[in-house]
């Protein structure tokens, strides 16, 4: 009888101030017990894009059914068409003015995951517990981090970001309570150290030793790594090596960004360590999401790619105009084309993340298969500030749950919160009501 002891799922490589989680390995399953091997966990992430989209390049021209050729803005996702659900007609009524006048940008991001019409105020901030935090509060204890909140744009938590709406609404997606947003981490170095730090405060001596050599965190866990490798088969060794190489690559990119920042314009707004280049910053942040999922450091991520109302220019695309002003294009073809190109560019960056998720294997499936990655926006037509037919994609099958490769149209005005109820079902939290939900979103599951 074989009595090999399996490796615990929550194994960390530890060293000086360091704790590196590792991916799912065959050695974590009991020997000859494939049939009893637990399903890998389901992960959930939200990538939020601001200022709406040019919908003629987002929505297919066809209705429900198999996804055929993807619209222009989504072309970069063509290799992952079979992994994609393209949802239509989802609405956030709570993002609308209702009786609160101007401020669609402030409202739509505040309501996006809370399903609540946020209070129009600069000081009396009130939203609601966001859906991701409800999930995190229930399952977060199973991972090192209940959730991760990431962003790339603006971390101001006060001031007027839209017609009397506090920046707390535009600059956060996740809300722990109705008055407590969870500000996103913008700096890749901060995120990296959070992911791979030991979680224990370092002594002054440890910090001095670590910074003195400026070595890779992997150097601090060499002993643990060697010990683990010795106990692994060739497949697991290769998998571990690929994973640690990915971690090292992220670390190198951060170092490069830090080095670049020292050399460029001192007036640049970006804080130390934050890449000036959008694509580089996005790649770093999304690579770390993939790593965090791979190592099961968390199962819940929100990524506020850029904030509502952002006037970020896209000079790398030859677009010096601010994103938000461009979206008020008044149907002028030239301005609309620039917004289309920005929309495409964002999706291209996202496709890189999807590729990584799909390439990472977990048993017979990919990491993407075991995830629900929502890519969406709180406005559809940014020019008209419309809150219906919100651009929404789900990448991944949620662990063999969603039937992907399809365009699914809900009835018009179907609450976005109905999708959240369905996702909560998949995360093992069946609840009857969230935000302004009226039921579950039909037609997504394998049935």
């Amino acid at each position, binding site marked *: 009888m074989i009595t090999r002891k399996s490796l615990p799922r929550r194994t960390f490589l530890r060293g000086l101030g360091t704790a590196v989680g590792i991916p799912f390995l065959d050695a974590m399953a009991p020997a000859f017990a494939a049939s009893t091997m637990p399903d890998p966990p389901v992960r959930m992430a939200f990538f939020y894009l601001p200022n709406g989209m040019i919908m003629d390049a987002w929505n297919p021209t066809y*209705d*429900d059914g198999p996804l055929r050729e993807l619209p222009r803005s989504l072309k970069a996702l063509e290799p992952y068409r079979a992994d994609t659900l393209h949802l239509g*007609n989802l*609405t956030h*009524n709570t993002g*609308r*003015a*209702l*009786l609160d*006048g101007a401020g*669609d940008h402030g409202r739509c991001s505040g309501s996006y995951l809370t399903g609540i*019409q946020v209070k129009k105020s600069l000081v009396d901030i009130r939203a609601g517990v966001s859906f991701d935090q409800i999930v995190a509060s229930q399952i977060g204890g199973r991972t090192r981090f209940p959730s991760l909140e990431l962003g790339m744009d603006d971390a101001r938590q006060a001031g007027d970001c839209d017609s009397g709406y506090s920046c707390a609404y535009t600059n956060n997606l996740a809300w722990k309570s109705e008055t407590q947003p969870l500000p996103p981490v913008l700096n890749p170095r901060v995120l990296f150290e959070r992911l791979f730090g030991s979680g224990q405060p370092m002594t002054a001596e440890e910090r001095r030793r670590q910074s003195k050599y400026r070595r890779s965190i992997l150097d601090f866990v060499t002993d643990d790594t060697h010990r683990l490798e010795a106990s692994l088969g060739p497949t697991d060794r290769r998998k571990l090596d690929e994973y640690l190489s990915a971690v090292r690559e992220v670390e190198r990119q951060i170092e490069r960004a830090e080095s670049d920042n020292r050399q460029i314009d001192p007036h640049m707004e970006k804080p130390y360590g934050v890449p000036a280049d959008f694509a580089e910053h996005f790649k770093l942040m999304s690579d770390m999401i993939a790593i965090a999922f791979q190592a099961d450091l968390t199962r819940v991520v929100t990524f506020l790619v850029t904030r509502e109302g952002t006037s970020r220019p896209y000079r790398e695309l030859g677009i010096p105009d601010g994103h938000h002003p461009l979206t008020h294009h008044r149907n002028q073809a030239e301005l609309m084309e620039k917004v289309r190109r920005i929309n495409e560019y964002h999706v291209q960056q996202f496709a890189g993340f999807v590729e990584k998720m799909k390439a990472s294997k977990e048993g017979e499936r990919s990491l993407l298969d075991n995830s629900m990655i929502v890519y969406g926006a709180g406005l559809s037509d940014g*020019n*008209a*500030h*419309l809150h*219906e037919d919100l651009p929404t994609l789900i990448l991944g099958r949620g662990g063999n749950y969603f039937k992907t490769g399809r365009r699914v*149209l*809900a*009835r*018009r*005005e*179907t*609450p976005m919160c109905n999708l959240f109820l369905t996702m909560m079902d998949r995360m093992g939290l069946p609840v009857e*009501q969230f935000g*302004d939900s*009226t039921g579950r979103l039909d037609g997504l599951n394998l049935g």
Partner: protein
Amino acid sequence: MPQFFGGRQAAGAFYDTDFSTIDSLLAVSLLYGLQNKNDCRVAIITMSRPNLAVAGFADAVERFYHGPAGNFSQLPPIGMRTDGPPGETSAAFTAPFQKRKADGTAVYKNQVRTIIDTGDPITLIRNYLEAQRDQNAFFILSGPASNLAAALAFPGLKALIAAKVKYLVVAGGAFPDGPPEEHVRADIAAAGKIFAEWPTPIVASGTEVGAALEFPGASIDKQFAQAVPDNPVADAYRAYQPMPYDTPAGAMAAALYAARPREGYFKLSDSGTIKVDEQGRTSFVPGEKGNHRYLIADSAQKEKILSAYVELASAKPEIRRRFQPPVAQDAPELKK
């Protein structure tokens, strides 16, 4: 002065109907005519039977009156119930789509192809009520009360109705008594629930009111044709029955009263309670504590009412101005 600097917007009109009569369609034209006069704002139209052909036509009528969606302006979908019998599809709702321009293209486009192009009535009622100021909306019911009864049963919606809605005007029943009426009989339980539980005053416009104030069909080829060459409601009227004909107009009476309660078009019964028996017969029990009344056709007002029907329903569509002057106060007898 722009509305947001003071005053109050015209009340939001919520119209729930089965479109089982041409009168129920004319009421849409009337409501948009009243909107042009700033006597109401058409909020949503919900349908109490699952019939895509009829919903498609109602949607085309909405587009005709509403104009294109623009900045900050959405054209809400037609709300459509998905259970229950679909009922008959009159030629009134299909024939207009056959009408062609000189170049052969369709005059009216049916953009409701599947249920996806409609909305859930309860969701729409909830969403659009939330956009109304307190006590600044009214409902008109012309058809079975199925949707409104479902709205009352939806968590939180009864309280929202109580907060936002001034009154409900029901085109249905017979008063002070009479035989069972079609709209009530189509869903007796729902009608009973509405009269028992609806949290605002209710005014009923019984069949006797509609019969006493028939819409003058001759206006279709006169005032309607003069205002707009292609009007889907006028074309539907022509296809509904062989012309010329007049038609009972209970839904129009309900809509006119709902938007202009102070105009004195109708006499109003004393307060009381409307009850629905098992056969769908309505009865009125007078009593000061009751929250219900019914309209009484006033022969002295007939010409004035019919003129209003024609003038308002035949009016050319106007894009609603976002900011309108304040409106007059409500009828004092309907204060809760």
